């Protein structure tokens, strides 16, 4: 009974936390630019306002795909964030859920991309091809780094990786060289997965008018924004718990209870600020070729290195 309640509560909690984190992100971003910035709950206002707006489907769009895509994207990424959060609270997990979470997160990006191309707008088509290129660039090293984690822990279940850290009383990133390399790879891939500057090429506002999102408005846009926030939240939560599960360092771990979950949420927020907010403040947008080159020259060799090291048992 308790389990079902927690599972059901995970969805609104993810909704709330991901929009809250986005609000903090916007505020910190503004403060770093000497601006006052919007209130922290601005994303909630945006969500409510967009939901009360008119639904517009362009005549050139294939309306079925166009309207279904935001719902699928939002569901996939909220589910992707809720699974790790719920298994942290319940301290249990299902075998293979790590792969499922990654699939769900890719699913939400792919859905947004497809929605853009189904809109019939040329900018949507350019956004599609750019996002496709970016997916190939960052998704491969990201997946390889997660695979090397599961090789290292001999498990495909998310909670087993966390509990391995609790047993060893050590953060996974500091156990072996292979895991340190995997952690760096995963963190390098987050900005691209989050579509943050310098890798927001597929949604470049000044170049292709938000790319895939160009024709979306009203409730559809609200859902896509939610999907993006939730998938960013899931990525940072994964980084914070898979590689740097700080509560594991405490002696009386069992006595922490929900405190362990809260502290890992705080770490997730810190990772969000470091991997999404800071790059988006201090860099200019790259061109698609330059971004692709970056991902295949640094994170990809790093991920292969971590894979090689973990098969060697290092």
């Amino acid at each position, binding site marked *: 009974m308790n389990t079902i309640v927690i599972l059901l509560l995970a969805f609104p909690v993810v909704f709330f936390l991901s929009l809250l984190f986005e609000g903090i992100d916007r505020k910190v971003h503004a403060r770093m630019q000497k601006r006052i910035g919007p209130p922290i709950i601005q994303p909630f206002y945006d969500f409510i306002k967009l939901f009360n707006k008119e639904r517009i489907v362009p005549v050139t769009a294939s309306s079925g795909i166009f309207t279904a895509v935001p719902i699928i994207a939002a569901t996939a990424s909220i589910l992707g964030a809720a699974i790790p959060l719920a298994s942290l609270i319940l301290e249990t997990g299902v075998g293979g859920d790590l792969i499922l979470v990654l699939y769900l997160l890719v699913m939400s990006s792919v859905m947004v991309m497809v929605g853009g191309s189904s809109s019939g707008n040329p900018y949507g088509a350019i956004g599609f091809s750019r996002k496709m290129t970016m997916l190939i660039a960052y998704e491969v090293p990201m997946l390889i780094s997660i695979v090397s984690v599961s090789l290292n822990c001999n498990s495909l279940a998310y909670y087993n990786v966390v509990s391995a850290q609790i047993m060893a009383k050590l953060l996974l990133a500091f156990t072996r060289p292979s895991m340190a390399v995997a952690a760096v790879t995963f963190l390098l891939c987050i900005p691209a997965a989050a579509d943050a500057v310098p890798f927001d090429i597929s949604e470049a506002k000044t170049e292709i008018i938000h790319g895939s999102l160009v024709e979306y408005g009203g409730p559809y846009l609200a859902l896509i924004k939610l999907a993006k926030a939730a998938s960013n939240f899931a990525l940072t939560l994964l980084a914070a718990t898979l590689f740097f599960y700080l509560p594991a360092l405490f002696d009386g771990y069992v006595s922490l209870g929900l405190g362990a979950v809260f502290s890992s949420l705080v770490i997730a927020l810190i990772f969000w600020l470091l991997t999404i907010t800071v790059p988006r403040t*201090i860099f200019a947008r790259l*061109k698609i070729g330059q971004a692709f080159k970056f991902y295949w020259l640094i994170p990809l060799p790093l991920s292969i290195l971590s894979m090689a090291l973990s098969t060697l048992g290092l």
Partner: protein
Amino acid sequence: MKMLMTDKSDGTKEIQMDYTRLRVPFGPVHPALKEPISLRITARKEEILDVDIMLGHVHRGIEALAENRNLVQALYLVERICGICSHSHTTCFIQALEEIGEIKPSERALYLRTLIFELERMHSHLFLLGIMAYEVGFDTLFMFTWHVRENVLDLFEEITGNRVHHSMNTTGGVRWDLPPHIVGKVSASMTSIEKSVKYIYDVFQDKTVEKRLYGVGELNYSEARELCVVGPTARGSGVNMDVRRDYPYAAYGELKKGFSVVVRESADAYARTEVRILELFESINIIRTILDELPNGPISTEESVLKLMRIIPEGETVSMVEAPRGELLYFVKTNGKEGLWRLKVRTPTIPNVLGLKPMLIGCEIADIPVTVASIDPCMACANRITLVDPDKGEAKVTDVSTLRRRGRKQ
């Protein structure tokens, strides 16, 4: 996607689709554009194959309006041609009137005109640098640059009372004097702005900005000469021209030694940006020299403006100034009855916008905003109305009264 329509012998039409080409409409409404300009771009994947430039979305008929007003009213009207280089327009216009009427402004008035002129150049260049940063997705630099620009706008408010349309010029002089306490403020601001501009120059050499600007939108020397581009766009392509040095006006003749013309050879978007950053330092130097050497004397003639307007005889002349965007040219023909026969404005954007085509062809779609911004287009200055009949393929230029009549009919 490009459609090719061919007529078959039996009268039916066959449509062939070329799916490798994509027609991308860039503008007239686009987040990268501050003012409407329409570029029809043909692209294959990310590469640009062809560009078609279309103007005419913000025509306001100012030349015709000026011809219906008296000279004083026209002075305030031409100021409204541009919100960024309003002082350039009034200076250019007033110089022409003063030449026709043989009115000689005092030395102090000419120095004050030059002071506002250089402040305006600074605010225009800082504006553009901010836009450049925004186009490459570097919002932080954009915010910082515009923060610096606020200092210049505050100085305008301090000196003239207005931030945008300064209304500084009047026939035979300027309207506002520079009291000693403001001199101190201006020179203090120059010190702080110089420090900030050095910082901006550093940030523009950042790796990610560099990657977006180097080798983008190249316009080589011969193309620049052929298309007669002007201002920083020309100087970025190695064309050594500057009206301030070549045909000195206002107080630039005396200040000649106080500044140098910045020329860059590399001819890309970065060269044009760098020219503007370095010109900011030159402007700061000029302003410092002006503050040191400001001569004493009256700021305008004794007689009232209306009286002066009446003595301006029939005549015509051409006047030129170096506006922040390049050479600004006015042809003024007065009718001797307080009015104008003809006013012709050639703003720097008209020649510069032609340079866009050679710049863009061969670039990527991602380079369009950067390239368009790098010539600092000011569409509202440049627009003339042309009516095009797409069926007959005819184009004719219309005047404002016909336009007004058409407007009333509908």
